[in-house]
């Protein structure tokens, strides 16, 4: 059900600079729809970023991360050609993953 993510990883000096754009409504549970009904809370809770299969970031989020979440981070000691992967899980148990290769 989850739409695809976008990811870009590029060497910047000694770091791999990674930017990720996820596709998710990040409902706070406080927003009302056109009919004036509260839209149930629904958001990405957990994001794991890994570098060549090893976890580099273990993230916990609340509903107050903006819709279609953006995440930027840097990995030290990475090199061009390495694999960077993102796995997220939301409050409904939906999951999405993406993997990319670090560009020079």
């Amino acid at each position, binding site marked *: 059900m989850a739409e695809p993510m976008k990811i870009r990883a590029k060497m910047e000096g000694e770091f791999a600079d990674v930017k990720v754009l996820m596709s998710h409504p990040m409902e706070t549970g*406080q927003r009302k729809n056109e009919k004036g009904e509260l839209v149930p809370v629904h958001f990405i809770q*957990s994001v794991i970023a890994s570098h060549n299969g090893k976890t580099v*970031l273990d*993230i916990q989020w609340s509903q107050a991360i903006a819709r279609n979440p953006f995440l930027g981070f840097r990995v030290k000691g990475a090199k061009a050609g390495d694999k960077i992967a993102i796995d997220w899980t939301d409050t409904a*148990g939906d999951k999405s993953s993406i993997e990319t290769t670090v560009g020079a």
Partner: protein
Amino acid sequence: MKPLRRSVLKLFAASATLAAAGLLGARTAFAAVWNKVGFESKTGADALKSLGVANAAASKDIQITAPEIAENGAQVPVTVLSRIPNTQSISIVIDKNPFPLNSTFEFSNGADSYISTRVKMGQTSSIMALVKADGKFFTASKEVKVTIGGCGG
């Protein structure tokens, strides 16, 4: 979701990815258990308590980048860089939000202690970055003025 179920699901996900990638090394850590108490806290003080923070020292080695004025509270860019050696995690706490604890980022295996994201802000508030390094806590804060709140959107 129950912690056990999450761990089990994570295990499956990790195994599936490894199988697909044909990698030798296992993913080194499973997802941390979501800090339900912290994320449901209604005050910044309770949120900090949930993270085990007692005496956090203000630090100039934490750099928060966020706009002075955010016209749209639904999308406020925030970047936190910790120059404190052995930084283990960064948490963002937005005091005036209905649930102040915004996020926690734990670093391992060579991640730089730097994160960039976009948060929602209901109204003008301080954004606090809480850094855990060598088991000790450090903080820095930055005030962001919000023109239109972002909790409804």
